[in-house]
């Protein structure tokens, strides 16, 4: 009974602090999430989610940058001792770091996934699994897979960058990793893919395999890009998409654990 009470009061404290953060330090994340939710909801309601599909790289990069720039302020709090000051107000170390994660990472990931899911579920649930929905003759991947991999990539990228930033207590490391994952690897992987394809000789089959190179360069941390290249390689294949969703999901959980563990330890010191 007492442990239930503890959990409840713990949750209440996390809720309070996360709400406070969203209204103060994490406001840019909240604003950015609302803007992107709006764009996503409109494009999916009108069956024109190719708009999202075309600009996904820009949307993803903008989101990751805003999330990292906001969430990395926890590193400042740790370095400057503000975190210790807040901990004296009755918040545990775990609650403190969880509140930060909820307001800066979980909130945008969940709300953006919902902003895409809600119009699809209300207007045409078929879009989640079908290849043929929308007023324009365009055959995109199923929307359900796009939403799942997009949210997962957002989560894994931010968690990976933040966990390294917290381990080394440096914001710049978080920034470098975020830029590497969202910009450098997605740009370099097609270049390497094309280079290998050119090396294989001028046949149409070899160009198809550039998608496989892009897939294997992205499948650990960028499930969205990996899924798109797997879809371009073979739209009916399910092994490659499941592999990237599973492996990057496990990586995401590992980084979450590493982040909480290191943040707790760094507050002990």
């Amino acid at each position, binding site marked *: 009974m007492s442990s239930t009470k503890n959990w409840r009061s713990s949750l209440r404290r996390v809720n309070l602090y996360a709400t406070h953060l969203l209204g103060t330090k994490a406001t840019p994340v909240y604003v950015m999430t609302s803007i992107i939710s709006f764009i996503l*909801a409109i494009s999916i*309601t009108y069956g024109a989610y190719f708009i999202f599909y075309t600009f996904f790289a820009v949307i993803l990069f903008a989101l990751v940058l805003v999330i990292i720039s906001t969430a990395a302020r926890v590193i400042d709090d740790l370095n400057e001792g503000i975190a210790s000051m807040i901990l004296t107000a009755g918040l545990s170390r775990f609650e403190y770091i969880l509140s930060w994660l909820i307001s800066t990472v979980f909130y945008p990931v969940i709300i953006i996934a*919902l902003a895409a899911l809600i119009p699809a579920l209300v207007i045409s649930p078929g879009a989640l699994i079908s290849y043929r929905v929308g*007023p324009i003759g365009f055959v995109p991947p199923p929307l359900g897979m796009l939403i799942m991999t997009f949210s997962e990539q957002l989560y894994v990228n931010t968690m990976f960058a933040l966990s390294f930033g917290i381990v080394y207590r440096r914001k710049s490391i978080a920034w470098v990793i975020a830029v590497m994952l969202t910009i450098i690897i997605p740009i370099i992987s097609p270049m390497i893919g094309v280079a290998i394809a050119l090396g294989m000789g001028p046949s149409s089959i070899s160009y198809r395999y550039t998608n496989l190179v892009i897939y294997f360069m992205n499948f650990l941390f960028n499930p969205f890009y990996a899924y798109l290249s797997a879809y371009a390689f073979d739209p009916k294949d399910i092994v490659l998409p499941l592999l990237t969703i599973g492996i990057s999901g496990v990586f995401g959980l590992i980084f979450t654990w590493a982040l909480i563990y290191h943040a707790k330890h760094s507050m002990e010191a």
Partner: protein
Amino acid sequence: MIKYIIIGLFIPAMIVTLTIGIALIRPLEGVSRTTSYGYETIVVTVNNNNETVVALISRPINGYIKDYISSEVYKYYLTITPSYLYSTSIKAYIKDDKVLIIAVPSQPYYGFVVLKPSLGINFLKAINSVKIYESDTSSISNERIPLSIFSKYVDNVEIRIVRIITFEKYTQVRNILPYYAAQFSKYQGMYLTDIVYLAMGNTPAAPTAQSILQVSFERIAMFQTTIHYILGPGPQVILRDIILLSIIVGLLIYDYRRRPDEYYGLRKILRIFKKEEKS
């Protein structure tokens, strides 16, 4: 936190509800795709009544329509606009002009073909036996053909649009081909049927007769296809939207009762209503 979750849910819910509301008042319509088609095959023959019959057959339209599968909200329609006849005076000599949509595994002829009557009759019979839609040419541009009627054919057989024109029995070449009649003065008084018979034969005049027919009918061989969409929500869509709104409103009431201070704007609106009630 619930406040921020409600805002997050409210954005897509508002967009969906507004769209459904507008679509209920006036279904949103638009054009998805428009293409001009030429005909792949032109078949000229003579029927039992000694009338000239021209069948203009398009190339398959499967690739054009197969991506448009209607969902609960989006309904797709095809409209066909045949090209205008190059001279309005021809209309007086046309006995019958209709457009058919046919579904066939493959068709036996390509290009410009003049068929002997026996073969031609069988060919026209065959076309009529595989039709899935038929309409008069004068009215087809106003008709909306639901794409759902093609769904069982689109992946299996070729879907083609056919225009069949039957000319009056005593149509002369000069009646329908004034420019060509002037050019080929020798043929201008002849009946169209005779030109067709001439084109079927092996005489030295056959190539000229064929070219007259070919050039004249190629000029009408064009039509425009358009795929329209209508966004009209059905009862299931409205029900799902109501469920979604109920969840959001339920969450809002629950959280507002617990922490009314967090909802500054809502509180102010509610106060205005309460004041009005009192007064």
